[in-house]
């Protein structure tokens, strides 16, 4: 009997230990990840001010990450603006919602939806692209080849991408804000028979520089998150082509989550300022 009891107790403890162990492992993996990311951030930022400057590579990356994302971010913004206008008119109909369309559309776009949706779109497109490219360079030893040729992979691969996304995402966001407001205008004029001048006037009276600044300010943070997560996951691919696929998926998930979570804290921060 006692033996049986001891065995049961032993296994019960073992189960707990396993749980604690698994929990600890998960936690330490997460901490490793954050630590690695922080280290990469430091090195990449330090490399921004160190020679050599890969101007050509930065311009190339601006084209890849910025110019080539215009389509996806602009379409997203245009239709978001249109939907916002429709929904506002519908849900605020009882309160004379039509009058507020310009304000609601422009405020929600400029403060929140423009930066976040643009960042999510770019995070998916550009973040995944960065991980796939750097990841395949890692598994084919091209990153090692850079090091073997006394070229810093961080300075050569990470920093140009960081700079490019850092400057392109706010530009994409500003354009998205504009396009979204124009989308709202289309609906306002053609569906809700509001005049364009009324729509613009209500925006003009409502929107402050601070709204625009807080929206664009956020997008700088989102840009850094996208570029650094993309690069970090790419540089840390271990294995072959399948591992590159896994890392790419991980980038999209991690970038999206970090954009949404940091958006909350940034919003709080900017409201407190």
């Amino acid at each position, binding site marked *: 009997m006692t033996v049986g009891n001891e065995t049961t107790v032993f296994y019960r403890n073992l189960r707990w230990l396993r749980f604690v162990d698994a929990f600890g492992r998960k936690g330490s993996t997460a901490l490793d990840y954050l630590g690695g990311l922080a280290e990469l951030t430091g090195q990449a930022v330090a490399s921004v001010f160190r020679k050599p400057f890969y101007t050509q590579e930065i311009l190339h990356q601006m084209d890849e990450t910025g110019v080539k994302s215009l389509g996806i971010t602009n379409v997203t913004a245009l239709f978001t603006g249109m939907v916002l206008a429709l929904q506002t008119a519908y849900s605020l109909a009882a309160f004379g919602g039509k009058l507020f369309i310009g304000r609601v559309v422009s405020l929600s776009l400029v403060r929140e939806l423009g930066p976040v949706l643009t960042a999510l779109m770019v995070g998916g497109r550009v973040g995944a692209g960065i991980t796939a490219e750097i990841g395949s360079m890692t598994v084919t*030893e*091209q990153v*090692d*080849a850079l090091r*073997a*040729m*006394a070229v810093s992979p961080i300075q050569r691969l990470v920093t140009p991408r960081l700079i490019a996304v850092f400057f392109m995402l706010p530009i994409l966001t500003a354009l998205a804000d504009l396009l979204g407001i124009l989308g709202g205008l289309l609906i306002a004029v053609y569906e809700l028979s509001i005049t364009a001048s009324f729509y613009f006037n209500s925006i003009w009276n409502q929107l402050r520089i601070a709204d625009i600044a807080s929206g664009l300010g956020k997008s700088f943070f989102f840009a850094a998150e996208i570029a650094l997560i993309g690069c970090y996951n790419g540089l840390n691919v271990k294995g072959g082509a399948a591992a590159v696929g896994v890392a790419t998926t991980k980038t999209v998930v991690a970038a999206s989550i970090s954009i949404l979570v940091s958006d909350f804290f940034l919003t709080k921060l900017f409201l407190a300022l």
Partner: protein
Amino acid sequence: MTTPASPPPAAAVEFVDVRKAFGGKNVLAGASLKVEKGETMVVLGPSGTGKSVLLRHINGLTKPDAGQVFVEGQDIVPLTEEELAPVRLKVSMLFQGGALFDSMNVFDNVSFPMREHTDMTPEEIRHRVAEKLEMVGLPGIRKKMPAELSGGMRKRVALARSIALDPAIILFDEPTTGLDPVNAEKINELIDDLNERLKATFVVVTHDIVSARAISDRVAFLHAGVFEFVGTFDEAARGAHPILSDFFRSCGFPAGTATASIAASAVQALTRDGARGVALGEENP
């Protein structure tokens, strides 16, 4: 009164009791080896015995857990990534798959080290690239992308890139792996030829005995993380070292003291001076 004796000239590469473990597995367990200037040292051993890991210690891509690695007399283990830069300019590496940058064409790949580390004019670079591509027997493919090249050509372009800055030491990671016999033979000839022309030290990691016979001045046999044998290829083929003869046998060569000359000749038969090799065999007494 007494002048201190000048230290003996440093070896090109020296491993002193190098230890490295990955995930609890001892890959290098106290490996020591000296590679003299100008020689071609072939590190032999079955796949997965840590030969490539050993090679990556010479340019600091991998750091040992313990032990010292000297490159031309300088211990490179304590050096940081930045301090390693001058070492890496002296020591270039040919990776197993070539590791060409697949976003760049052949010209940009070969000229990459020159653009990064020299202030050569575009004209000088063009001239130098042409010269290096000619050395590896691939003139006139400057505009091609790596994806358009065969495996053998990719390796030769990578070789051209690794000799771009006239390094003193060149590391070869499995130079003939994944190539058909004809292309492997071409690479062997190229390595032999370059060794004569460049007067550089070559450290070649391979499990290809034919290649080892063709290019080596000396071979070192890596087994269970230590060097079990260091000497010329003929000594290796003749020698009675049990593990080494097992390896030779597993590569399709009869081994052991009695049949060692057959092993040597069989290898020779497969290499350039094949005619002489066969003449030494038992079939032609």
